[in-house]
């Protein structure tokens, strides 16, 4: 840190103007623009001179000793919009009175809409919501998307808890049955790829790593603002991809004539797993599935009975092959040979230990995550332009051993006025990401949460496992708790957890280049032309390893992926006053988009030859041909918009776009999409004191969607040749040469009002969107010889309400309280599917449940086996166990929440600021595979709890044990049958339960974020010199789950971003973050 600031000082000295001429001063008064009240303590500042002062009690200020020249004067004050204007000093005193606009309602706040067109809130005729870049940067997230959580009504973000995990980002619910439902990201007017990098196996819980999404390559410190365009009307100009809404990001731009500015932002982030989101274990019973292990009379049936010490007596040996805890009751008097008795390097080799619960259960596996984030932004504004440079470095370690994620982000931006009419601009970004040891996911041995939450022995001590791993790492021996047999050479189901982390780790890297160059030419006052070329490209490598000695087949896999998108835009922006009352503005343009994706995926076959060498040549058998992918997409678009504004109270906006896409059949590849939006500022027509502002909005839009690439022509699948005999196979998906574009139609109505001098305001939106003619690989009867066929069919309707309320309940001279509420609700229904089809399965998941689009139901219906009900109560059979349906075709849940909301509070007292955000979701079902299996293997306290007789449920029913499952008996009376629960597969878990028993309500209330920050007073800063601003903050993220119904897990967890939600298996706990941040401005 010290080194950095020294070098900055040097730069400053070099760059600051050295010659001082005649001097003058500036004075004036700062007042509230709406009330005229003076504003004391406002910061008045000249950046170029690095000179600032605070207003006095009456709002007055004086800046003295100012050399002659023109300066940009900026004023900032809590709760008000920043003010900037030029002041010319010529050796005398200049008076400059300043009126500040309150910021909370922000009617004049500038919104960035499609193709970078800036509009005030007043002029918008569709739903949009803005988040300041500062709000994002302040929370110091490692992934800026997380920081958007709860800030925009209708925007649902769920981030996976794994280090660098993916975020599911959906606006207004799911619209496309099998297509992409994620929002479009646009950075400085150019689409920014946000692909989810995960395999379909990963997304359906079969295993693999969560490589996150690529929008995280954006440097949060470089974000000026984020504008969320919610509906198709707002985003229609972007074409096909905007049907899901758009997140329009504007990066920080330099300022002409602003002089030199340097900002250093540095933080340290400490993360700990949240125990309320992880398994709790019962501590009474140990390894085993039940009393199955006796070989001869007199044996203890809960243990293996082997003569270990040669004394002729059969000794007790833990049933270490069994990955469950339905075994013998703990009893310190019993001496039992455990897994380490078979490890020759162990001090316990050949020795028995007392039979007790582990001192270090899996909670001791988690480490403290540390993230150091340092950034420097450097900008220089000169007469004819500016340039800026930024560098951000983030080094993160996760909560699992041997995990790290490092990012470097560089950005350069420049603008230069070539002539008074021509400006050349460039913006270039580089983002380098290196990951190591990302967390395994899904139902796989490399996901330790699967072990810890589903298949575990409560007698296994993690500390002993850790020591065992390190003792044996030199000889590449996997000393697991789960030996296959007494020769103790290999695991049967699970590896030593430390082996998994230190041997079977992945590494990955992504080098991304993103940027554009453009020329802007002012043809006339009312017309300018922009030509722009932009590139978004990255190369990515993912390398996955499974070491020799692991339970999974030893493997080295490498996956190389290249992505490139080129956009060529030509835009004409016009803005003209047709008459005194009517203005007309808009854009006419064309966009050529070319997208190219390639990948190659290769892995070793059937094992590795030598240990520790992760290269394709180390394959035990000859390599199978790698999978290659090469996909190109081209879209040519023409578009125009016209925005009529009559007397600033009546707004009519028309847009239209024509796209031609390469992925549709050539005779059907052109599609048009129009939109009409109107806004009426009715407060202009009324003379009501109570109403400051009122606007009605109404709009209609259509958006077209193109087909996925390669969905027109059939190709064959290519299995590995059988020896020298080549094999080909008909692909399981039938493509369709008659596809036509998919379409979305949307209506939206909105009402915005503000009252009480803008102290209270709201924005209410209602929308109804229909996505029809969907291009779906429809599930068809396999008897056709195919699994799926691409067709145009199916409709999803989304109706919803979004509400944002902003208020400033308290505003005094020193204290401001801002309160805002976001709330949204949508109703989603699959209204039709291809003829004869009632259901499209989105994913078939472990545990026998499926996620579906079913006619007449919300998208994302969870199907599985259900209870048999009587009078609404589950029926319990005479055995005491639940009765269940014979099929697993019943709808047992809906992944969509009933509503989501957030409350955000911000308090400002002088230089102190405190804010917190509470985020909540009501409803949204989750099937928990962790409970489905983990209850069945006896890990959780419920499986060893006391029953109504005060006996342990595992005790024999004849002794008063057993469990009474909630429900009714077959005759409808309340259940009072004690069901035996003495071994796995009985009263708890998968074997005797319907899937519905382990479907949970995913509601939560979370304290998402809390921040305390302090800005050093201007006076103090002036004394220090050099520095212009010092902000200190303490930030907490995900501190507290105030309420949830899902036990032992975070209800926001899923498998991955994507369409398959409402399911948890091997879920990671959430991490509480505490961040200390220091920001210095020079």
């Amino acid at each position, binding site marked *: 840190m010290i080194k950095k600031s020294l070098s900055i000082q040097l730069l400053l000295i070099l760059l600051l103007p050295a010659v001082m001429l005649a001097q003058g001063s500036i004075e004036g008064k700062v007042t509230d623009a709406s009330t005229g009240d003076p504003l004391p303590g406002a910061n008045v500042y000249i950046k170029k001179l690095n000179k600032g002062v605070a207003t006095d009690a009456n709002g007055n200020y004086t800046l003295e000793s100012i050399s002659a020249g023109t300066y940009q004067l900026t004023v900032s004050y809590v709760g008000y919009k920043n003010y900037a204007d030029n002041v010319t000093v010529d050796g005398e005193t200049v008076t400059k009175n300043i009126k500040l606009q309150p910021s909370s309602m922000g009617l004049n706040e500038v919104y960035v809409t499609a193709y970078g067109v800036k509009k005030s809130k007043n002029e918008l005729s569709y739903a949009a919501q803005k988040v300041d870049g500062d709000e994002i940067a302040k929370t110091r997230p490692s992934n800026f998307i997380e920081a958007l959580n709860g800030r925009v009504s209708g925007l649902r973000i769920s981030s996976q808890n794994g280090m660098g995990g993916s975020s599911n980002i959906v606006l207004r619910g799911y619209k496309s049955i099998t297509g992409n439902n994620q929002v479009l990201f646009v950075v400085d007017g150019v689409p920014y790829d946000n692909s989810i990098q995960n395999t379909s196996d990963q997304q359906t819980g079969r295993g693999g790593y969560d490589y996150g999404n690529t929008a995280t390559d954006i440097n949060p410190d470089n974000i000026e603002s984020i504008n969320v365009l919610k509906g198709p009307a707002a985003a229609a100009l972007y074409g096909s991809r905007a049907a899901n809404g758009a997140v329009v990001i504007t990066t920080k731009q330099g300022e002409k004539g602003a002089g030199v500015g340097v900002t250093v932002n540095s933080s340290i982030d400490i993360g700990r797993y949240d125990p309320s989101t992880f398994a709790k274990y019962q501590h009474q019973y140990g390894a085993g*599935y039940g009393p199955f292990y006796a*070989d001869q009379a007199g044996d203890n049936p809960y243990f293996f009975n082997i003569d270990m010490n040669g004394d002729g007596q059969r000794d007790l040996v833990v049933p270490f092959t069994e990955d469950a805890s339905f075994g013998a009751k703990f009893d310190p008097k019993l001496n039992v040979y455990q897994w380490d008795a078979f490890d020759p390097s162990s001090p316990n080799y050949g020795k028995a230990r007392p039979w007790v619960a582990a001192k270090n259960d899996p909670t001791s596996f988690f480490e403290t995550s540390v993230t150091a984030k340092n950034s420097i932004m450097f900008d220089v504004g000169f007469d004819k332009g500016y340039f800026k440079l930024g560098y951000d470095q983030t080094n993160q370690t996760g909560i699992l051993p041997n995990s790290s994620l490092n990012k470097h982000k560089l950005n350069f931006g420049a603008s230069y006025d070539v002539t008074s009419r021509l400006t050349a601009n460039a913006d270039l970004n580089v983002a380098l990401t290196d990951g190591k040891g990302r967390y395994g996911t899904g139902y796989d041995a490399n996901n330790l949460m699967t072990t810890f939450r589903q298949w575990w022995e409560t007698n296994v001590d993690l500390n002993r496992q850790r020591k065992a791993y390190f003792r044996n790492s030199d000889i590449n021996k996997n000393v697991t708790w789960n030996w296959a047999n007494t020769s103790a050479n290999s695991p049967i189901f699970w590896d030593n957890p430390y082996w998994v982390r230190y041997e079977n780790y992945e590494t990955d890297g992504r080098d991304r280049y993103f940027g554009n160059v453009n020329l802007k030419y002012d043809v006339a006052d009312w017309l300018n032309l922009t030509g722009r070329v932009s590139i978004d490209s990255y190369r990515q490598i993912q390398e996955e390893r499974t070491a020799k000695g692991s339970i999974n087949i030893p493997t080295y896999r490498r996956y190389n992926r290249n992505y490139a998108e080129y956009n060529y835009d030509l835009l004409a922006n016009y803005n003209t006053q047709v008459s005194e009352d009517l203005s007309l503005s808009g854009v006419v343009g064309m966009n*050529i988009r070319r997208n190219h994706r390639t990948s190659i995926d290769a892995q070793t076959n059937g094992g590795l030859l030598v240990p520790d060498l992760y290269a394709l040549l180390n394959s035990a058998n000859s390599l199978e041909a790698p999978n290659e992918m090469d996909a190109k997409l081209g879209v040519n678009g023409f578009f125009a918009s016209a925005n009529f504004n009559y007397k600033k109270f009546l707004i009519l906006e028309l847009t239209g776009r024509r796209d031609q896409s390469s992925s549709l059949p050539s005779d059907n590849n052109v599609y048009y999409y129009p939109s009409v939006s109107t806004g009426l500022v009715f407060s202009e027509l009324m003379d009501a004191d109570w109403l400051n502002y009122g606007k009605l909005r109404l709009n209609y839009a259509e958006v077209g969607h193109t087909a996925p690439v390669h969905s027109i022509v059939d190709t064959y699948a290519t299995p590995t040749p059988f020896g020298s005999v080549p094999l080909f196979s*008909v692909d399981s998906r039938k493509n369709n040469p008659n596809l036509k574009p998919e379409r979305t139609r949307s209506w939206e109505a909105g009402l915005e009002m503000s009252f009480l001098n803008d102290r209270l305001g709201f924005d209410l939106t209602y929308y109804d969107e229909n996505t029809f003619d969907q291009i779906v690989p429809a599930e068809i009867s396999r008897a056709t010889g195919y699994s799926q066929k691409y067709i145009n069919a199916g409709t999803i309707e989304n109706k919803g309400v979004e509400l944002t309320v902003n208020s400033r309940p308290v505003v005094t001279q020193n204290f401001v309280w801002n309160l805002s509420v976001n709330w949204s609700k949508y109703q989603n229904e699959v209204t039709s599917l291809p003829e004869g089809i009632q259901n499209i399965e989105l994913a078939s998941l472990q545990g026998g449940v499926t996620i579906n689009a079913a006619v007449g139901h919300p998208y994302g219906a969870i199907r599985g086996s259900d209870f048999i009900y009587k009078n609404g109560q589950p029926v319990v059979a005479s055995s005491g166990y639940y009765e269940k349906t014979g099929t697993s075709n019943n709808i047992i849940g809906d992944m969509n929440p009933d509503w989501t909301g957030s409350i955000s509070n911000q308090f400002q007292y002088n230089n102190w600021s405190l804010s917190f955000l509470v985020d909540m979701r009501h409803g949204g079902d989750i099937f928990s595979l962790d409970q489905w299996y983990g209850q069945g293997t006896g890990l959780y306290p419920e499986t060893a709890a006391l029953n109504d007789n005060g006996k342990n449920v595992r005790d024999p029913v004849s002794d008063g044990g057993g469990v009474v499952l909630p429900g009714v008996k077959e005759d409808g009376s309340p259940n009072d049958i004690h069901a035996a629960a003495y*071994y796995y597969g009985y009263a708890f878990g998968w074997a005797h339960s319907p899937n519905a028993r382990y479907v949970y309500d995913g509601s939560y209330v979370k304290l998402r974020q809390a921040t305390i920050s302090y800005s050093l007073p201007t006076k103090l800063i002036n004394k220090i010199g050099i520095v212009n601003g010092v902000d200190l903050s303490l930030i907490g993220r995900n501190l507290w789950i105030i309420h949830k119904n899902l036990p032992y897990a975070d209800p926001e967890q899923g498998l991955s971003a994507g369409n398959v939600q409402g399911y948890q298996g091997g879920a990671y706990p959430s991490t509480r973050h505490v961040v200390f941040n220091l920001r210095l401005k020079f």
Partner: protein
Amino acid sequence: MKKLFFLILTVTVLASCSDLTDLNKDPKNPAKVSGETLFSNAQKELGDFLSSTNVNINIFKLVSQYWTETTYTDEANYDLSGRQIPSNDWSILYRNVLKDLDQSSKLIADDNTIPAGVKQNEQACIEIMKVLTYSNMVNIWGDIPYSEALNIDNTLPKYDDGMSIYKDLVKRLDAAKNKLDPSNGGFGSADLIYGSSSNSIEEWIKFANSIKLRMGITIADVDAQTAQQWIQDAAPNAFTSNDDNALIYYKPSPPNTNPLWEDLVQSGRADFVAANTVVDTMNAINDPRRGEYFTAKPDTTIFVGGYYAANNKYGNYSHPGDKVEEPTFPGIYMQYSEVAFIKAEAVERGFLNGSAEQHYNNGIRASMEYWGVADQDIQDYLNQSDVAYNSAPGDFKAKIGLQKWLALYLQGLQAWTEFRRLDNPTLNARYYYDRSGNLQQNDQEDVPKRFTYPIKEQNVNTAQYNKASDAIGGDDVSTKLFWDVN
């Protein structure tokens, strides 16, 4: 600067005029292949399906109680829905086997480079593979989509009656047999079953007749007259020795090994042990195949099977034998021993003349020879009073049912079919442990009579599914198939 704009404008307009559709070509996957390659793939897919012991696909070795499971006993307890086994099998057979055969036939028909005689033989082989596959499917589910199957333009195919499918299949089998001409070549090395034989077409004729025999005996209880016709026609030209066996010779390295190797060896797991049902039976009659089918119980020389469907400690019981665990262990479509047992039964039923005992002995001998049992041991075995045809207990169904079951080891699907049809041997009711570790047994054996239809059919082909379910008497595991009348 204006020049620059015109330049950009020109470039963009030019770019927009190029043929966009070309971008949508897939340069990495083939759009044209030869028909033979699809035939080979279909053979492998069917071979894999029949051989596998993957619990998501083939649980017939459990259902027919050759094997049982160790820790996770859901499938041994006949749980079909947890892993959607019917859906998986339906997909494999329709999509991976039948569709590839269908497409192979179309491509070969259009291929002008293949001589007409060869083409005719190839089309006949494809038909035989289709008949084999469909007949297996009828034996799993009963009524299935057939006349409207494999047509992408009809995504809602109706289900046909099992018996009419059987009859049509035999018609097709006859036509294919008649087309086969040994003076012309066939698929050659693309034929994974008989490609290495010196006269593969003759083998295919025998194979077709053997399939017809099997189909005939399957319907013997429900339509004796038709059964007799089919059997009389096919018997003279069916398999005559183990040299005729329809096998797939797997390769030593993945993914072309016997699928058993993947689940038994490569997985490192210990999921399966011999079931007490078969081991107890073999012990009682000193079956010399024991040591080939299974290993001895670890550290002993005795053979012990795990209690069927109960939890079994892997180390306490016999496991699948060493041969079975070889990656190159051949997969079996059909063997001569089965043909011999069919003939024995046909004689008993009066369909054929001759000696049932002779055929019975041939069946046992062929099976033992296939597994490498020494001649003397075979003779000793046959001489035992419990084995010798004249003295073995029970009626012909019991005698043949038992020995056929023992000979069909690893061919779980066919063994299950024979068990359902002959109601012999007696399989075990499922075992479980009580709290004190005492072994208990269910009151009665409840082996499924059929598989339920895939849930996917219920959802995507609802109307036809409902009709089919009604037609067979309910889509349930306890519904007996049309040929299962006793």
